[in-house]
């Protein structure tokens, strides 16, 4: 038997597609809230361009990176932003889409999943979360 202990238990709506988490992005004195889907298949956390712009970032000043999906590839730009999920804050390297029409916000592996402990019981709509110490 294995045992994990968690500080946070969140309940999510299983009738919705994906598992969405409340996210706060913060940069200096600016911050905004959004919902992002947990995506263990995404290498990084990627957010809509408008959110980066609202934080005052010049998107193209970030570090360019190409990503692939089943339908093709897209370009995004990396920036150092504070990412907060359910009270857990991470000084992270996250990406914003170049294309303003891309509207899917994802919490991916590098910068989020690699610094938490996560447990999911999808049948019950329960998500357990902890910072990896």
């Amino acid at each position: 038997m294995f045992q994990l202990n968690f500080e946070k238990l969140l309940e999510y709506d299983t009738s919705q597609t994906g598992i969405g988490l409340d996210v706060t992005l913060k940069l200096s004195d600016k911050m905004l809230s959004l919902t992002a889907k947990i995506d263990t298949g995404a290498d990084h956390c990627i957010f809509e361009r408008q959110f980066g712009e609202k934080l005052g970032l010049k998107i193209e000043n970030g570090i360019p990176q190409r990503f692939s999906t089943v339908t093709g590839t897209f370009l995004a730009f990396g920036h150092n932003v504070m990412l907060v999920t359910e009270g857990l804050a991470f000084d992270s390297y996250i990406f914003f889409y170049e294309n303003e029409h891309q509207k899917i916000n994802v919490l991916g592996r590098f910068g989020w999943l690699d610094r938490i402990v996560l447990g999911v019981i999808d049948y019950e709509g329960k998500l357990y979360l902890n910072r990896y110490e």
Partner: protein
Amino acid sequence: MGQITIEIPQSVKQDYQINSEVFLEELENLVRKFNQVDNATDLGLANDDEQIRAERMNWLRENREKYAGQYVAIDGNRLVGVGKTIREAHEQAKENDIKNPFLIRVSGENEILSGGL
């Protein structure tokens, strides 16, 4: 002093009650989110220093090809740990007395990463 009595229709009362509840719920959510960020600041993880962020990004621009495919731990513009895993890079940083380095998985310019969904 004269007194005016206004009878508020039940439908208006109900609307007011519903709107108040929605407003209070939104206010609570807002306070909760602000508190989250305050907690983050308490943890020493809120990096509001524009110069430090710029140094990190410059370091990454200059070194991304050299460390592509690896994790690095950066303190300002100084490399304090490197490894194939986040654990390796973090452990090295801790050995260098840096407890909270900026940990990044570096990708090369021509590397195509998974965008998920």
